[in-house]
């Protein structure tokens, strides 16, 4: 069974796509697995822990409008909507438990895979 790759690994989309949803919990950074129209298919424990939300607050919801409206802008959601191939890491600020929390987001999408992913790594304070 595939091991969780590092946040900055080059072939991370291939590696993470090969993993069962249960194995995503092994990753020490947040992983949100979505359909191409943004509906959350799986979320790992690291992201649940970071957000303070339960799994049920994510699953089957549109990530950009119903879970994390802070990403519903041209910096994040628009890129997923417009681009067919996407592998970009940006510094961003999430609002976990209403507190501004600097994070790094790695946005992953490819026509070769059915799902798209958002990886979230908390920035070092």
């Amino acid at each position, binding site marked *: 069974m595939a091991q969780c790759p590092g946040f900055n690994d080059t072939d991370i989309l291939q590696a993470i796509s090969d993993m069962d949803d249960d194995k995503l919990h092994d990753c020490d950074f947040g992983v949100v697995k979505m359909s191409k129209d943004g509906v959350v298919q799986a979320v790992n424990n690291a992201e649940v822990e970071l957000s303070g939300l339960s799994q049920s607050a994510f699953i089957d919801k549109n990530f950009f409008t*119903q879970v994390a*409206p*802070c990403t519903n802008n041209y910096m994040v959601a628009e890129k997923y909507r417009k681009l067919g191939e996407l592998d970009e890491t940006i510094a961003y600020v999430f*609002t976990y438990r209403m*507190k501004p929390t*600097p994070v790094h987001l790695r946005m992953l999408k490819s026509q070769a895979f059915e799902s798209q992913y958002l990886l979230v790594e908390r920035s070092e304070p």
Partner: protein
Amino acid sequence: MESKEKERERLLRFLYLAPVALLEIDPGGDIHLMNGYASGYLMPLSKTGELTNLFQILSDADIDLSELVKGFTGEAGTVIKDRRMRCVPPTAAPVYFSLTIERLSSESFLVAMSDITVQVRQEERISTMIEQEALHRGRAEIASGVLHDIGNAITGIATGVNRQLGETDWPEEAGLARLEDMFRDAYDALCRVLGSSTTDALLRYMTELRATLTSRRTELNKNTECMAQTVAHISEVLSIQRQYVGEQPDRPYSVMPLVQLLEDAISMQNAALEKRRISIRRQYSDGAAYVAGTRSGLVRVLVNLLRNAFESFDRTDMDSEPYVLLQTSRSPDNTRVIVTMSDNGGGFGLDPEELFEMGVSRKKNSDGIGLFACQKIIESHNGRLWLTSDGPGKGAAAHIELPIQEEQAR
């Protein structure tokens, strides 16, 4: 009963997903709490990729938040409410927010922001449309005014030209001819008194003078006919242009005797009447009725209807003398005057209403604008225009009904 943890999560999600940006800042602008929409709105505005100080993030906005917060002296209350703020993200078009700031305590301010960019863009579009419409209306009004003034001038010129056309015989020419005849009759007596060479010279001079006068008259008539055609052409061009510009409703009306308008229209068509040997018959049973309107507009309608009548004779083999009968009468309630212009020309078999549609005409070389324009002009005078005919070859009549202008209103 919900567990405290679930209740807390529910409250967090409620605040987090509230469709308005909510932030808690301190007096220096540092952000302590914010929800999802706040992050979504502010991240594109942040030059550093961080969201630590609201005043820094919004330093390029058209409102100085720092000054507003510092300048608020109350213990608690509204610092600003629903203030429109314009921000320019580094890599995107300007965005607009409605901003409200409440001071909660000396160390805590609640900031609420909602994105009103779509609304502002709509307002801008509407404002631009209103400006363009106003500009268009202004131009149309100027054009309409110019066309109106030119129309009045042309109507005056046309009346003069057509009067000139009516003067086909010059009394001076006839007088000279009579004088010449008298000289010839008294040739022998004149020769005895003046001598034959002087008498012959005088006769030659008179003959040349009459020939010159005849030549001048012919030339002048020809020029006047050309001028009448040019004036008619200008009138048609003005008529078409008026349709594009649209009659301005605020054009000043004047009060005029209806019969004067009819006679002016007839006068303008004298040349056509004579050319076609059409007689005008008048039955003005209400010759004293006054109407209010734009003179050039009403005369234009009457001229157009007269022309329609004349041209219907061109399409018909006439057994009898062609005529146009002009009648005026009052409505039973005495408030409106009705002009009926009937002819014994070609008539029509179409539905009369169809003839008023733009593009429909009985004439071969017509764009059909004439009757459509006439109807619009009469309607703009609170009147009615309609046509009747017993069928092809049985003549036609145009009827105009207009409000009578009362004596005291003149």
